[in-house]
């Protein structure tokens, strides 16, 4: 039990911080309730997928600067194909967009492995490439989104056989994040591939000597990131009902959430739950700053300061824990 607590200390701390912030929000805005949780989850949706994508490559010892651009490609591809498509056709379109995401990620990884150019340089170039591709697909904000997709993230959860009152407080958008991340990441994490991703992230040489294929593992990690980015792009289309070719502010936000989520930027250490909790914390902080009508130019300073303070606090706690 204590080992479990120690191992997941950071994540637990984030969960407590999130709970404390929820209480604080309720105090400053007594009207905060179901609709508040719903809008929080919907705001977090694209950030959560961008962060999941970034986390996987960071765990493998890399970094993907093209996350936001891949999201834009996925979003405009989906929105353009869904214009005039039937609901049934849109199911295939979703599958196609996810495949496009997987392919974009795999291409990122393959370029890094084959050219031996550092991750940061390749993905920086791909940031511009995918941005251009998105603009080729749609010149302006246009397109459409299937109704079942927009309904997927609207309102609270209702399940058959269970009274709605028990589940309705839990936003569907949050369910979508949990289900998608679990479906993709749990099988990977439990397989040899998951172990290999952590291994090449913490010590590539040791991993190589243990017989792990560095190149293949790296390509797989980037492909998974591409898949998550595609989910992020679809989340954008679900929210706005259209596709926007210009990438949104998801790159820096995902790096921030990865750091706040307790993942080492050097790779091999951390998980997916922490960063996603961090996304929810950062969105809730923005909500609180809006509720308190803090000067918009001060808002970003506060957001940055909170991040540094939390990471610093965590660092101090970790050092103390080790001494004891």
């Amino acid at each position, binding site marked *: 039990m204590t080992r479990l607590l120690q191992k997941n*200390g950071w994540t*637990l*701390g984030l969960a*407590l*911080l999130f709970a*404390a*912030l929820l209480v*604080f929000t309720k*105090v*400053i*805005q007594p*009207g*905060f309730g179901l*609709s*508040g949780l719903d*809008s929080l989850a*919907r*705001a977090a949706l*694209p950030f959560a997928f961008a962060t999941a994508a970034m986390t996987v490559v960071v765990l493998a010892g890399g970094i993907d600067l093209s996350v936001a651009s891949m999201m834009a490609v996925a979003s405009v591809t989906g929105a353009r194909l869904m214009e005039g498509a039937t609901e049934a056709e849109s199911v295939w379109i979703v599958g196609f967009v996810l495949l496009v995401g997987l392919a974009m990620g795999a291409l990122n990884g393959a370029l890094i492995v084959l050219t031996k150019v550092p991750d940061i340089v390749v993905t920086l170039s791909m940031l511009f490439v995918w941005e251009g591709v998105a603009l080729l697909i749609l010149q*302006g*904000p*246009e397109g459409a989104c299937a109704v079942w997709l*927009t309904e997927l993230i609207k309102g609270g959860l209702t399940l058959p056989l269970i009274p709605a009152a028990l589940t309705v407080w839990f936003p569907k958008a949050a369910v979508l994040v949990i289900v998608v991340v679990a479906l993709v990441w749990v099988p990977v994490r439990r397989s040899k591939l998951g172990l290999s991703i952590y291994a090449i992230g913490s010590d590539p040489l040791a991993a190589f000597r243990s017989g792990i294929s560095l190149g293949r593992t790296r390509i797989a990690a980037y492909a998974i990131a591409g898949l998550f980015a595609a989910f992020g792009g679809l989340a*954008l289309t679900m*929210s*706005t*009902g*259209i596709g*926007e070719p*210009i*990438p*949104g*502010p998801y790159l820096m936000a995902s790096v921030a959430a990865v750091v706040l989520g307790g993942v080492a930027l050097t790779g091999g250490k951390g998980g997916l739950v922490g960063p996603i909790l961090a996304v929810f914390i950062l*969105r809730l902080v*923005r*909500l*609180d*700053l*809006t*509720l*308190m*009508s*803090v*000067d*918009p*130019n001060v*808002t*970003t300073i*506060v957001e940055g300061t*909170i991040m540094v*303070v*939390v990471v610093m*606090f*965590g660092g101090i*706690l970790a050092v103390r824990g080790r001494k004891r």
Partner: protein
Amino acid sequence: MKRLLQGTAALGLAFGFAGMAHAEGYKIGISNTVQGNGWREEMVCAMKAQALVSGKVASLNIAHRNTDAAGQLEDIRNLIQAGVNAIVVNPANADGINAAIKEATDAGIVVVAVDQAVTEPSAYILSNNQEQYAYIGAKWLFETMGGKGSVVYMRGAAGAGADNDRDAGFKRALAEFPDVKVAQEVFTGWQQDQGKQQILDYIATGVPFEGVWTSGIDNVIVDAFVESGTPLVPIVGADNAGFVGQLATVEGLVGAAVTNPGSVGGAGVALAIQILDGQKPASNTVLVDPSLWANNTDDGKAQIAAAQNPNLDPEWPVSVSIPGWTTYSMDEIIACKGPGE
């Protein structure tokens, strides 16, 4: 862990008190997705100044950052959570934020979209009348040319909504002057260097022309005439600081600036307050008419002189107010202070 919690609580308390001040009056939310652009900064300052001088606004919640439509959805929903009475928004695009606008109007919140339209029918739209913008400038130009001759027609960006509206206004004026012909029609893309090259190319052909109409790429056109030693013809531009300065100082230049004020933001706040007070406009779409400042009339000269304010940000459009809508003074918008600041 305990420390982490204590730290959070302390942080929370520190920020908490900032929001505790409550006064009588409306609470208005603002959402804007472009930060650091002169036109948009003027818009936000106009919103603050108008809210302050109206005396009816207790507080402003401003979400002003660089983001996409999804981020603006978040901002609007946060403003709904903050319990505002009205939201004035410069939309990221026409369709992407409809869902949140519908949620706001369903909650009884007045939503006014300024500058650009949204397709959600429950929102009010207040924007500059771009058709009229082109019409009054072109009409002045054709009159100044004596009702005959040829004109160089320098448009904005092909396909842009504002450019299409302006083209309709220009054509309407052209129809009223049968002896005026368009010598050359070009798209500047609203790019300074491109516009300058295009007019230099046309001057080089040696074909005479009697006037230039521009869609706001104006000061470089005057520069091109002056630098190439070509005799000046009447020129129409926008109320950009550079061009308005030239209208006051360049020897022999006869020209007019048509206003395209960023202060529509202030007008949007004024409209939101009117609606909250129970005075609904006849139509959901309200257009603000531009004014024309020509340096060949005493009235225009006075307005051009008044706009030469060294305290004014050179990146701002110089028309800082909209007659009939905004009630603040130039000093108040430059101060950029909202209620409670």
